[in-house]
């Protein structure tokens, strides 16, 4: 386990990804620069259609924006819950851990139904609000961006919580006590002791949530509806209904490149923070 030659440990994953991911990806890239999926003739048509069409550009922006909103919303809720986990006793810790993974256990299929139940015009939220007299008419939640972000917050929160909790597990409780006994305020303890150590977890979570929310094709379609346009649905449509594989490939690669850029940025931030 010396630092020299440590790269060899990454080799198996690297080779597997070359074989099973990079090679198909290359084929996809080839398709995007071609007139059809048999790569008979090169053409820039698909890329021109992606880049030269404001509708597609707007859809790409919508998708990235959705990812950013999902990251903010999940972080806003997951960080406090992870802090509670850190401070909690064994029973509450177990409850939090179980709650943290619950969303992953309900199949994406039935999840769509439960969000219709919650966000719908006659749904749980609207019934509650109207019962409390907070609103007289049902407010639109289903098929809106807010509704979709809320649903994604639930669906993606485990991806934020699990790395956060794992990262915070390394915080020595003695450190917290020491900070408190030295008269540090809660705010100071969090900022100086907890957050720096939790940061790798937070950034890992942000990457996972961002990537997952931007490609969550079924949730985007069913909860977001047809009035909101995101790239994954357009990829599906072009690949499966219109059979324009070059265009579908170009869109998929556009999405991938833009999300990777964000992920790369987050990873740089993480390294900067770690080695500061």
């Amino acid at each position: 386990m010396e630092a020299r030659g440590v790269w060899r440990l990454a080799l198996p994953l690297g080779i597997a990804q070359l074989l099973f991911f990079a090679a198909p990806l290359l084929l996809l890239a080839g398709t995007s620069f071609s007139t059809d999926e048999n790569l008979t003739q090169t053409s820039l048509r698909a890329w021109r259609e992606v880049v030269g069409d404001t509708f597609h550009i707007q859809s790409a922006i919508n998708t990235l924006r959705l990812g950013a909103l999902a990251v903010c919303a999940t972080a806003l809720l997951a960080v406090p819950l992870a802090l509670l986990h850190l401070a909690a006793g064994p029973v509450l810790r177990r409850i939090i851990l179980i709650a943290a993974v619950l969303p992953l256990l309900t199949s994406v299929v039935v999840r769509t139904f439960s969000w219709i139940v919650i966000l719908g015009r006659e749904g749980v939220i609207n019934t509650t609000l109207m019962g409390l007299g907070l609103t007289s008419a049902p407010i639109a939640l289903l098929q809106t961006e807010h509704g979709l972000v809320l649903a994604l917050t639930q669906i993606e929160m485990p991806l934020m919580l699990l790395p956060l909790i794992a990262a915070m597990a390394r915080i020595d409780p003695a450190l917290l006590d020491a900070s408190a006994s030295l008269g540090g305020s809660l705010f100071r303890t969090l900022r100086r002791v907890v957050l720096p150590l939790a940061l790798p977890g937070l950034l890992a979570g942000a990457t996972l949530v961002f990537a997952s929310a931007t490609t969550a094709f079924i949730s985007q379609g069913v909860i977001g509806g047809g009035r909101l346009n995101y790239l994954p649905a357009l990829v599906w449509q072009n690949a499966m209904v219109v059979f324009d594989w070059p265009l579908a490939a170009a869109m998929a690669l556009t999405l991938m490149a833009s999300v990777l850029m964000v992920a790369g940025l987050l990873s740089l931030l993480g390294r900067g923070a770690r080695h500061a």
Partner: protein
Amino acid sequence: MHRFSGGDKALALLIMALAALALLVLVGPVLVVLITSFTTSQALRFPPPGLTLRWYQELFDPVRSAQIHRAAGNSLLVATLTAIAATALATGAALAIARSRAGWARFAEGAFMAPLVLPGIAFGLAALMFFSWLHLPPSLWLLVAGHAMIAGPFALRTIGASAAGLDPALLESSAALGASPWRTFRRVVLPLIMPGVAAGAFLAFVSSLDNVPVSLFLSSAQTDMLPIRLWGMMETALDVRVAAASGVLVAVAFTLLLVMDRAVGLVRRMSA
């Protein structure tokens, strides 16, 4: 938050409130599914007009739900193999990345995330095109390979977050004491990153179990997958067994989690 005694009360309250909201958001939709799974109505409906265990009985009926059982068996098998493969590959990569400051590590960290950000439908399509081009017919192994590509980044990111905090001095002293790399890994590294590895394996497992787009292309009649079957049952008939299937999964995972929790706790105690 007893450990933060003397701290800022308002901040503590805000944290508690947000944490409570987080719990509500996490659990609420799952409760809806669980409650729905006990409905007396013939189709998915909330709130249910009455409660019954009938849909669980139907789900476990070996004749009427035979196809679901077969698909569930396939999905569990693929998810298990995927979790094993993804976790093993990702643990190695995560350790390598965490221990290196070289440029390649930064590049690899980004590159390894790529499968996560390609829309699943595009990857599934491309993978099938590629395998067909190699004249490889759809098989369980290709399906696992495809799932492992998607699950790998989940495992890598989660294990990486744990590995990032490893103290190099600890590993060097273990090596200096004459421990083989494998022994150092098993005795020193693994216990330290175990929470991350367990979380990574779990994420890999569930991401495979719930995968629709890759299975759509790489599965065959012999490797019929559960989420695709559930999708059809839901779409055409609002079949309540779809909710009951989630109920079963929650119960199983609940048990598994308690067992895993014990195991991780055990490992931690042993390392102490």
